[in-house]
């Protein structure tokens, strides 16, 4: 045996061994996509405008404070739209001083004076930054929540500039998960000034029918048993950011509830507020809805309990979202798919069945046409499949239904490579070459066709991978791997088997 052949054999056996090692057992090593495994697939959009809006609101307050502190006169400050607000009633002779003050304070805003108006516009780069940051924060918060909730192998990924893809294998209760992800979870404790009342008129009776500037009207959460409207202070005494710990517990009637303790700063404020307002009610507001409004019976320090008519599940979910923190911007769903585990299992079973039948048919076909040489093609084909699965496992790629289509195309091209070679060998034989010569020439001449056709398809698959979305990507991945394996098996493995089995002086070739 020639030395080159020995090395080739070793390399091929090594590659085969490695692929088997990587892919065995396939049940544990090959990651299946949600369409094959079952689970929830959500695509959501981050309402990034929220982040800009919030920033605008906060900056208006900060500028007001800044101007007041430095004796700059103005009458009103009004937000025109997110990222844009106007101070009016400014004095012309203070313009220079105001400019210095603003420039010292921040560079994020463009501003211009005209008459007694001072207009602020958030810079485009800052807007971009805020939006980008919001998407990342939302992604992290959702990841935290899913983590707390407990899902094996979740995938939470940013997609493009404003989207997030959430894939949760094995989860089959979409409503609960969607609720868990979607709540903004801004928790605030605010003093109740009036209410609950059935309508605004009754609520504002003591205030002359108008909402005082430092108060706001919010709705009770009907599902928590708090109907009606509340008038509460605008500024929160304590917020979710002050929480040190939250835990599911029970209230004194053994109903599910959530207990919390505050950090030292929060505890100090809580103590002050409760101490000063004994006998009043303190509303617990989640995402702008009053959950409960208990009476303050005495000064309370850092611990407390949130009650409402929670079910066990709801109390658990509230703990999860409070632990993971609030969303910095709202979200909305663009796409939601729930695949039951039975459908996924059916797809896998049917896919395997069809794949097996297909491979067996191809084998019979090849052996029928090319006799013993056909076995050679079958060996190359099987090896191709094994390498493909090994590589899928190595790259941690996910096998999806379109991915199976990719495998089929690469199997087809693997068969084609062998057909090209065999037909060429036959032609060379017909042209009068001896058997070893015909085999050499057959491989040589078929090579350029195999190489060019595989490479062209690989090129298109790379672009599909680059620009395609999830399922198309899955298709491109299996295709690229399959075709690379194909060039290897068709050119090397098949050739080696011929070299090993056909002697130099062979008079007959089974082809």
């Amino acid at each position: 045996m020639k030395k080159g052949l020995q090395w080739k054999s070793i390399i091929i056996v090594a590659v085969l061994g490695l692929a088997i090692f990587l892919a065995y057992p396939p049940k544990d090593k090959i990651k299946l996509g949600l369409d094959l495994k079952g689970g929830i697939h959500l695509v959501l959009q981050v309402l990034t405008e929220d982040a800009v809006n919030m920033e605008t609101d906060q900056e208006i307050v900060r500028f007001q404070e800044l101007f007041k502190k430095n004796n700059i006169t103005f009458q009103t400050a009004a937000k025109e739209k997110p990222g844009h607000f106007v101070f009016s009633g400014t004095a012309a002779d203070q313009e220079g001083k105001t400019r210095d003050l603003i420039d010292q304070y921040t560079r994020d805003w463009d501003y211009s004076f005209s008459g007694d108006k001072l207009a602020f516009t958030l810079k485009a780069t800052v807007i971009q930054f805020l939006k980008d940051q919001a998407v990342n924060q939302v992604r992290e918060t959702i990841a935290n929540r899913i983590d707390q909730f407990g899902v094996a192998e979740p995938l939470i990924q940013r997609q493009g500039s404003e989207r997030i893809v959430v894939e949760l294998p094995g989860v089959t209760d979409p409503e609960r998960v969607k609720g868990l992800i979607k709540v903004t979870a801004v928790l605030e404790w605010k003093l109740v000034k009036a209410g609950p009342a059935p309508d605004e008129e009754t609520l504002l009776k003591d205030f002359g029918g108008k909402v005082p500037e430092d108060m706001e009207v919010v709705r009770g959460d009907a599902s928590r048993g708090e109907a009606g409207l509340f008038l509460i202070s605008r500024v929160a005494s304590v917020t979710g950011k002050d929480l040190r710990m939250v835990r599911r517990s029970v209230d004194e009637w053994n109903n599910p509830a959530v207990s919390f303790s505050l950090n030292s700063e929060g505890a100090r404020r809580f103590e002050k507020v409760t101490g000063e307002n004994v006998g009043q009610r303190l509303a617990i507001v989640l995402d702008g809805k009053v959950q409960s409004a208990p009476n303050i019976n005495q000064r309370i320090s850092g611990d407390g309990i949130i009650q409402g008519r929670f079910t066990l599940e709801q109390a658990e979910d509230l703990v999860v979202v409070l632990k993971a923190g609030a969303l910095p911007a709202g979200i909305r769903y663009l796409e939601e798919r729930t695949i039951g585990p039975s459908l996924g299992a059916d797809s896998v079973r049917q896919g395997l069945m069809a794949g097996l039948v297909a491979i067996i048919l191809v084998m019979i076909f090849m052996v029928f046409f090319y006799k013993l040489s056909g076995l050679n093609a079958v060996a190359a084909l099987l090896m191709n499949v094994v390498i493909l699965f090994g590589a899928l496992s190595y790259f941690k790629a996910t096998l999806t239904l379109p991915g199976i289509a990719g495998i089929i195309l690469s199997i087809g091209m693997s068969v084609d490579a062998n057909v090209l070679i065999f037909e060429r060998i036959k032609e060379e034989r017909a042209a009068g070459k001896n058997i070893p010569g015909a085999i050499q020439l057959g491989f040589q001449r078929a090579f350029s066709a195999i190489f060019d056709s595989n490479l062209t398809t690989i090129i298109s698959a790379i672009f599909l991978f680059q620009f395609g979305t999830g399922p198309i990507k899955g298709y491109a991945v299996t295709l690229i791997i399959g075709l690379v394996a194909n060039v290897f098996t068709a050119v090397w493995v098949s050739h080696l088997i011929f070299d090993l089995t056909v002697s130099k002086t062979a008079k007959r070739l089974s082809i």
Partner: protein
Amino acid sequence: MQLFKTPHINFMRYKYVALAVTFAIVLAGVLNITVFHGLKPGVDFGGGTLIRVEFKNPTPVGQVRKSLADVGLGGSTIQETGKKGYEYQIRTTQFIKGADAQQEMEAHEKLADKVIETLRGGSPESLTVVSRETVGPQVGKDLRKKATQATIWALIGMLIYIAIRFKLEYGVAAIFTLTQDVLITMSLYSFTNREINLPIIAGILTIVGFSINDTIVIFDRVRENSKIYRKESLEQIMNLSLNQTLGRTMITSGTVFLTLIALYLFGGEVINDFAFIMLIGTIEGVYSTIALSCPVVLFWQKAFKTKKGFRR
């Protein structure tokens, strides 16, 4: 065993016929798609909700249709899948136009809830929801955009590669061939009652893959023969190359065809559409590679007076 002794068919003689046939099919398809709305976008592209359910007890399709019609959901598409009489696939096709995407999405969800509730008829155990998919209008639009983008780039990539490895007109011919593969396949598909979903896109991509493969095999032979038979005209060389590769074209396509039959018969509901469009595409692909790829090169050379033959 030899399938074909190298035959001597004068393929190139039929080049105008081939062009006319292609043109006729594509025209019929385009008319059917644009005027008669023959292509039905599935849930992936058109948005809406697709629900797969399994009844505990056998339920005839008429009953399903009737109970949905009774609550005003008669317009839904109902398909029997898998176990006959037990499993159904229902797509709500009600036209929903909300004030914004979010409302549309929620309206779709509500419709889906209504379908499930109606079919359950008050007893939750009688029906299992196997899967449910809601796709908002934005996603479908994006998917179309992304798919178009990916396709255009892939085409450009292939054109450049073939132009480098062969010649520009061969790249053009290959792209032309596979464009008409897609057009013809879609045209034929538009006459069936099936929907366009993601697996169909995967199928079309696969057809393109096989077609480009076939085309390149023939071009490769033309390239090789051009070096051997320096005196012959390009048209004669193309004829020879088509005949020499005919055996492999038939054997390869036959193998693929067998594979697809297996997928079609055993692959299950989801793969069925994919296998179906692939079956159309495979037959059509053989036709287009043999009948169209080479003539386009000739036409191009005639039109732009590029140097004849393969040699630069």
